């Protein structure tokens, strides 16, 4: 087990997202919820950074980004 796994955050490209709801429906931890336009809002506390949202996004609109500890 890596004692210092890289930190990751979920980024949503608002302009590419078409609000299809796939990422929200299939998130295994319900870490994504729809905003008023149907696009995902990320709950950092319950997200386990599995990346399933990124893999099933038809629009390349959601992805995990590594952040360095200082950033």
């Amino acid at each position, binding site marked *: 087990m890596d004692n210092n796994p890289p930190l990751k955050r979920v*980024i949503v*490209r608002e*302009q*590419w997202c*078409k*609000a*299809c*709801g*796939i990422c929200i*429906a*299939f998130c295994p931890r319900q870490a994504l919820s729809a905003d008023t336009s149907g696009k995902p809002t990320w709950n950092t506390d319950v997200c386990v950074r599995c990346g*399933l949202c*990124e*893999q*099933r*996004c*038809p*629009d*390349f*609109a959601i*992805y995990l*980004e*590594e*952040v360095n500890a200082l950033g």
Partner: protein
Amino acid sequence: MSSLADKYLRGHKMPHIWCPGCGNGIITHAVLRAIDQLQWERDDIVIVSGIGCSSRAPGYLDFNTLHTTHGRALAFATGVKHGNPRLKVIVLTGDGDCAAIGGNHLIHACRRNIDITAIVYNNSIYGMTSGQFSPLTPTGSLATTAPYGNIDRAFDLCDLATAAGASFVARSTTYHANHLRDMIVHGLQNEGFSLIEAMTHCPTYFGRRNRIGGPVEMLKMQQEQAIPVQRAASMTQEQLEGKYLIGELHNQQMPEFCALYEQVIQKAGGGNQR
């Protein structure tokens, strides 16, 4: 850090034209993840497509790309590969493009076992032209050209490719996006003709007309219908009714076309000219 999209997409062409929830983007993403995993040089890769929704994909991909005529992606790809066998040639095609108008090119690419990887975006319908049935539309399904239900039987494209001589044949779905990436990786690594049938969904012209629901419901249907080939071995014919197999369905190494042709060149004494 940037995403795969930043690395491999032509950003100025995005967002793409596919409908909300269309599976084409999921397959295209899986192709990019497979290429990235193999760490192939971008300049060595040629991506070829025909006509249809799925065939729009290469337009968004920052590689050497060819958007060709309807059904002829494999014919163009054969020319590219034959002209420069060092190139890694990938064909992105749809169920109509590949199995109907391009069906003849498909069987002969399989028969030659030329080192091309074809990824078939099978959404069961002609999406771009508003939902006519294709040779892969399931029997009984509704289409604009089958308002009382499709009476044709669908090809099993994987069985067809296997029978025609392809050396690697696999199937996966957009629901199983990681598995799909793995099947594409295996196909790309195979030295010979590889066909990967990617089961996807057209929420606009198939899901809505057949009252399946939206993209989420269509992905759930894939989850229910797709049976890993290993698990199917212990299931009865009755249990497999209405299901389809996913996984590696055929893998048999055979001489590759360009390698055989190189031998012809050597025999003819022209080896120094290449």
